[in-house]
């Protein structure tokens, strides 16, 4: 090994510890007897007394199922809304001339940067009047603000990759823009649509700011976990967190290809 390789591996070890340590602690606290974790002055770094009782107590004695189902419903609705709005918008952006596409892109980028908390407060007032406050559809409508720009940029990229000739051919055969979209472009863009749906689903699953302001009474999982922490039910919070994280890990692995800087950064390439 030369100096360069040695330096690389020293770096790999240090950074790996940094990124793995918090996850390790979370798992350790979940599966170790609390005597050795949260009730200890200097908690051990090793698994002293393996137990499943933390998880069992957390998931059975605390309100887990309902927040879980609410999160599931909200995230799915956000995924549907995001692709329902994002497919036409993505196609439109990929085909419009730059002069018209640029302001629309800008509008979505600004939406992406808008501070959630600043707009959540007035939306709450509006939702109370519209009977959408503390409802899943209401929360989903607000969270889609976070996911729509991303979904649109992903779909714009997908549609840009489909040759215009295919669309022209369909148009020559007498299909309207909308028919061409429905019958030809959507099936061809299926992988991008799935990715946009899953990423939107995942962002909603994790979302906290809109959730705590717009659905505080019967909350989604992230907010329920926050309530657990503020009540001091740390072990329940840890148990919830582990279950909560599993879908995200699965989706992240499925989406490796799409989790690239330029998408997450909201169209950095443009």
């Amino acid at each position, binding site marked *: 090994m030369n100096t360069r390789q040695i330096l690389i591996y020293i770096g790999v070890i240090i950074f790996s510890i940094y990124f793995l340590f918090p996850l390790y602690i979370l798992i350790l606290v979940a599966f170790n007897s609390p005597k050795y974790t949260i009730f200890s002055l200097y908690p051990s770094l090793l698994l002293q007394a393996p137990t499943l009782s933390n998880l069992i107590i957390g998931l059975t004695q605390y309100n887990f199922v309902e927040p879980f189902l609410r999160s599931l419903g909200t995230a799915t609705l956000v995924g549907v809304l995001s692709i329902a709005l994002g497919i036409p918008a993505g196609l439109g952006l990929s085909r419009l001339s730059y002069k018209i596409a640029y302001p629309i892109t800008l509008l979505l980028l600004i939406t992406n940067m808008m501070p959630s908390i600043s707009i959540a407060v007035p939306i709450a007032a509006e939702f109370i009047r519209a009977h959408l406050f503390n409802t899943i559809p209401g929360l989903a409508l607000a969270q889609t603000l976070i996911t729509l720009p991303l979904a649109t940029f992903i779909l714009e990229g997908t549609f840009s990759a489909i040759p215009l000739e295919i669309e022209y051919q369909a148009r020559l055969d007498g299909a309207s823009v909308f028919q061409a979209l429905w019958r030809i472009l959507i099936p061809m863009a299926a992988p991008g649509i799935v990715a946009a749906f899953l990423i939107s689903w995942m962002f909603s699953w994790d979302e906290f*700011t809109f959730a705590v302001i717009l659905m505080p009474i019967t909350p989604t999982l992230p907010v329920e976990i926050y309530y657990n922490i503020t009540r001091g039910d740390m072990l329940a919070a840890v148990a919830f967190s582990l279950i909560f994280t599993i879908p*995200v890990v699965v989706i992240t692995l499925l989406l490796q290809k799409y989790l690239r800087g330029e998408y997450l950064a909201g169209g950095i390439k443009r």
Partner: protein
Amino acid sequence: MVNKRDLSYFLLALPAIVYVGYFAFYPAFKVIILSFWDPATSSFSLVNYKSLSYFNPGGAAINTIIISLGALFVQLLIALGVASILANEFRGKRAFSVITTYSLGIATVVSAIAFSLIFQPVGGYANTLLHLLGSKGIDWYSNYYLKVFVVDIADSWKNTPMMILILLSGMMSIPQEIYYAAAIDGANMLNRFIHITLPNLLPFIAIALIIRGVSEFNIFALPLILIGFHPPLLTTLVYELYSTGASVYLSYAAATILIGFISIFILLNILIGRRR
């Protein structure tokens, strides 16, 4: 002239435009207008901002800036390190790239829990590490700087991966030939990093800092869980004013200040986007 073709594609984008207009721009506009509205006299005035001054919004703004700059600094440092490693070929590279990016997908609340387990006022795993090194445990929330440190470290854990991805795509865009030429001229690794990598990476660093900077300014769940309302940030101040029901108009005023700061980032982003 707008032709028929453009019009039908514009119609496709219209639902999304109407949606963000109604759910993002209209509320933002409403917050700004109402923050200047005095409900007692039914007229426009600065009364909400005057009342807000008792809650030290300037301090909250400064805290937000300090936390953001600290987090950006930590993230940039780690991301530069990790990306320079990932730009090389070595055994175990795939595993290392998963290890350094997976935290991106971990929910903010979950990362907040992990770090509150690490940084407990009494006990906690950070104190275990200090103990192993022969030192006494410390209360990680005993002063302002330690609180900032805890939030910045926790935030960096979750958010550095995004910066790694952006910087790595920047490093991959630097032609290898330049490095070969420099190596032939006898430049060592550090010299190559300072004279080739950094200057070529600057535009990517700028983009990464702006994109991350916007998110840092909006940081909310993490400080709320780790340090609560003290020291206040702009976001936690808005939430505190809103949830304690002091006056919704005060939270509008604080929310407007936050929008003002974010507008600076939005302008920067547009200007840089134009140049590219």
